């Protein structure tokens, strides 16, 4: 069923018409962790869209809480709809941090958290491992550009804020590219060890 008003189609076949103003950032999927080892977004599965529908995809992280300390939040991409998460990446990371006790600050490049043409998972939080205190968490944004492109590498940028042991709030800036001309069609998030005890990850598409 559709609806036409004054000759203009407002919606049909279960979708708003493209001419209807509906905003340029569209929510695609929300995943909520419950002591989860991984959270994965796979194109074509569970209503997830990760293809050439959008030129940019944005992941939002809210209150990501680890089950244990001594671990870092990280992600990887897939070129085979989630069969493997090991796309090659070249990345850099820097952080700003300030300990609660006001005895230490840092503005520094994080060589232990970058990747040089590596298939490993990319840390999204540097400087120190996550704090698992009850009130500790991670929040932030990861933007991925034109992941369906089969000509160019796929760039991404991320900014996260989290509490590390100390405790410090750490403002983490990560950038890089998936060094592949294959389309990326799935992404997975996890801690380096143990589980994501709680938290929400939302995926948006940007027209």
């Amino acid at each position, binding site marked *: *069923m*559709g*609806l036409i008003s004054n000759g203009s189609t407002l*919606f*049909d*076949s*279960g*979708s*708003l018409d493209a001419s209807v103003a*509906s*905003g*340029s*950032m*569209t*929510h*695609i999927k929300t995943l909520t962790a419950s002591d989860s080892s991984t959270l994965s977004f796979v194109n074509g599965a569970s209503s997830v869209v990760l293809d050439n529908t959008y030129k940019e995809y944005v992941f*939002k992280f*809210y*209150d990501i*809480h680890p089950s244990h300390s001594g671990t870092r939040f990280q992600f990887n991409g897939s070129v085979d709809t989630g069969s493997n998460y090991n796309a090659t990446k070249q990345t850099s990371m820097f952080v*700003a*941090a*300030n*300990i*609660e*006790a*006001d005895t230490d*600050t*840092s*503005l520094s490049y994080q060589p232990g958290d970058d990747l040089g043409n590596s298939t490993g998972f990319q840390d999204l939080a540097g400087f120190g491992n996550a704090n698992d205190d*009850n*009130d*500790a*968490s*991670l*929040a*932030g*944004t990861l933007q991925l550009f034109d992941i369906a492109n089969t000509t160019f590498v796929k760039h991404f940028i991320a*900014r996260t*804020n*989290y*509490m590390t042991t100390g*405790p*410090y*709030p*750490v*403002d983490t800036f990560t950038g890089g590219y998936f060094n592949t001309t294959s389309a990326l069609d799935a992404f997975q998030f996890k801690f380096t060890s143990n589980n994501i005890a709680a938290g*929400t990850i*939302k995926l*948006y598409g940007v027209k």
Partner: protein
Amino acid sequence: MGIISDGTTIFDSGSLAAGLGSSISVIKKLTASSSGTLSFVNGSSGVVLDNTYKEYLFVINNCHPSAKSNFAFQGSTNTGSSYGVTITSSHFQNKMDEGNTGTHSLTYEAGRDLAQSTSFQRLTETQNTANDECCSGFIRLFNPSSTTFVKHFNTTFESISDNPSSSYNFCGGYFNTTSAIDAIQFKFESGNIDSGTITLYGIS
């Protein structure tokens, strides 16, 4: 009443179905006019600052001070009765002067971070007051209604300081409380906000 098209709900209960509308909603825009402060208080003047959204975005445009001062913000856990939530944060700046004299820097700004302080969080370097000078930027505030976790925020601001210089500022940290944050206030640390706008958005 709702409408279902080909098995897909288009709208129901007065709202577009999830995924069909915009994910960024304008909540409130405030315009300064020699204002001592600009405040967004949940439940007041159409402001929503609760668990309706997981993320709130403040966009600050062309805030012009009456006196040389730092632009700053704080939160409240008592709907604006007081603004003095404990914050720990970091702050760094990238800077270059107009004269291109080589006065450029990338530095941690110890005078603008906070360590378990209830002071206002500085968002910029000391802002100049010439007629064409102002600051602009944005703040992301994550899940302020949580009563379990600290409330993270990050800020990005561009301002004009001393020589004059372009001063590009990055601040990140958390409100170190498990109480919900339900109001946010902005001000220059001295003088007024002569002009400028601050718009609050919710991200769903």
